[in-house]
């Protein structure tokens, strides 16, 4: 085959193939459930019911989805520029520091609608700055961004542990976290939206940062497909040589893309910190940055896909909690396996089923696959 990935109709490319990959990932996960000695179908039912069965479940699902929209967008923006930002985790973690400074300074004097914008700026700024150094090193000194961002995850974790067991911890407390924020740094809940539809909600942390996440998804779409900068980023991601030839500054585009990515990662921290826990605690990101990789791959780097994939993962997190309750043999770590399988099948093995689907389409109607594939078959 001279053209290994001939054109499929868009719905197959963006709908069918991701769904097949997802399906295979879930089948394999089902085998793990079977291995543990539980019924995978019953597990799936509990999972979906836990996530969408009650109003509270839906609110929790959307709360988790908020976090994953931010991290998914962060990974996607960098990926459009051909950069693998594995440091979303660390950028979100260190952004907790920016939020802590804003909230601890202003929560007693300002109302939430003034603290929130300040915290957004602080979180985005700190996240962006944490991404700046690896970006600069990649652009100027050629050090591989994957390795440097991994290293920066660990460095961020060390800094945060140091601060949270030391300077940021109230003297009287034993727990490694900041003091609880006052009302001035608590984000309003959005549960009333779900209650409009008649569902009852006991208490769920879904908050206004969900709307911020949706706004960011729209802005990212605007940036990537409707601005010059986005075009340059995609050009560089496609072919650095072509970008250089077109006069796009390599340094500028790498640093800009990574800083936007870092800023989005940083904003993720708003959701758990100001919307739920009302303090900054050790390891509050707890892997959400890595989930972002799965979400971005699953969503095929498009904001709409990312929002849908984030809701899917939110469902897994919320439903997984119910599942752990109903089936003691399955803890929440089941989600980690599913996450890994989704990354494997939707990411690393994304082209595994493509040739078969192309063959299928070609046999059904040769025209829909296009001339290239027909020529390719002859070679």
């Amino acid at each position, binding site marked *: 085959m001279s053209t290994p990935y001939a054109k499929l109709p868009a719905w197959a490319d963006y709908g069918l193939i991701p769904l097949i990959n997802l399906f295979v990932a879930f089948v394999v996960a089902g085998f793990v459930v079977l291995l543990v000695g539980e019924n995978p179908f019953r597990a799936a039912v509990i999972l979906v019911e836990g996530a969408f069965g009650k109003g509270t479940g839906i609110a929790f699902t959307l709360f988790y989805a908020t976090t994953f929209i931010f991290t998914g967008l962060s990974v996607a923006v960098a990926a459009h520029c051909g950069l693998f930002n594995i440091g979303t985790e660390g950028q979100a973690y260190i952004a907790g520091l920016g939020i802590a400074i804003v909230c601890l300074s202003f929560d007693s004097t300002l109302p939430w609608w003034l603290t929130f914008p300040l915290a957004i700026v602080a979180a985005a700024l700190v996240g962006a700055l944490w991404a700046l150094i690896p970006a600069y090193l990649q652009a100027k000194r050629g*050090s591989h961004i994957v390795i440097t961002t991994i290293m920066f995850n*660990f460095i961020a974790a060390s800094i945060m542990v140091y601060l949270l067991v030391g300077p940021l911890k109230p003297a009287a407390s034993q727990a490694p976290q900041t003091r609880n924020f006052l009302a001035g740094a608590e984000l309003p809940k959005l549960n009333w939206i779900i209650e409009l539809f008649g569902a009852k909600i006991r208490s769920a942390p879904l908050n206004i940062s969900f709307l911020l996440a949706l706004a960011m998804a729209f802005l990212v779409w605007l940036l990537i497909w409707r601005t010059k900068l986005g075009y340059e980023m995609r050009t560089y991601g496609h072919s650095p040589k072509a970008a250089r030839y077109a006069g796009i500054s390599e340094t500028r585009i790498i640093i800009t893309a990574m800083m936007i990515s870092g800023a989005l990662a940083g904003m993720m921290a708003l959701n758990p910190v100001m919307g739920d826990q009302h303090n900054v605690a050790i390891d509050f990101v707890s892997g959400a940055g890595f989930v972002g990789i799965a979400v971005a791959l699953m969503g095929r780097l498009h904001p709409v896909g990312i929002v849908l994939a984030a809701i899917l993962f939110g469902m897994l997190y919320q439903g997984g909690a119910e599942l752990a309750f109903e089936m003691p043999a399955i803890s929440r770590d089941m989600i980690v396996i599913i996450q*890994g399988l989704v990354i494997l099948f939707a990411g690393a093995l994304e082209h595994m089923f493509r040739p078969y689907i192309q063959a299928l389409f070609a046999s059904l109607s040769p025209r829909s696959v296009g001339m290239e594939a027909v020529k390719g078959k002859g*070679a």
Partner: protein
Amino acid sequence: MDVFNAVVQTLDSTIRLSVPLLLACLAGLYSERAGIFDIGLEGKMLVGAFAGAAAASVFHSAFLGLGMAILISVAFAMIHGFASITHRGNQIVSGVAINFIAAGSTIILGQAWFQQGGRTPALQPGERFEAITLPGADAIHDVPILGPIYAELLSGHSILVYLAFAMVPFTWWVLFRTRFGLRLRAVGENPAAVDTAGISVAWLRYRALICTGILTGIAGAYLSMVQNGGFVKDMTAGKGYIALAALIFAKWKPVNAMFACLLFGFLDALSIRLQGSPLPIIGKVPVQFMQALPYILTVILLAGFIGKAIPPRAGGVPYVKER
């Protein structure tokens, strides 16, 4: 004399702590020299640790445990190969996936099989690798200076420790003195040339990944069957990533890898020993700083401030045969 004893003890724990790093680092050396990036060292070590401890406690044999650790770890390496060699998937993505699958499945299966919160049962004597006393260690234990160095520093480790250090010259010999090693390095630099010579790029890279799997399996077995008497969830705790850092620090060379791992092991040992007590001259250093130092050093190295780390040229690029 107290100072001397403290130094010997610190160096002794340096050796113990650097062994898993060294094995994982050499494992990464094989795959990266063959042009396959491997972020999944961490995950392969973890499944190795789990499989080793689980098999050892079920079959009551340390060596069966080691065998199972290697087998499962190689199987995970083959998944990496299937995705990144056969299907030309992104190697980083595949590695990340392996780390997640490893982290989740070890906990789920551990809980389902042993019901101890993701742990495996504590290993009994005979199910783990015991310390080996080198000949004459007891006899010269009381000799000043030399005695403690021989009896405590060099003697009294498990067989896997000696194996790990023996792997350093062995790896050097394989890579730089055998035909297989020459081809392996060539496939990491210029796979097209290897292909032109009529040698299968894919099969060569698969073999490199088998070497990687074997070594990460041993590294995992060391963690759960020597350092610890059983598997504990997430027991690799980032060691795979430190090994990756050490590999870059060593500029992809086996002997350098040993020194890099000893250095990172020493930093770890020192931070455990000091636990916040003040150092001479510098004063009190936060534990977290010591823990972050390997990563900071690697970033500085990568930035090109201490020599230049040049990775194998074809690293991370799937090989597409000329059509």
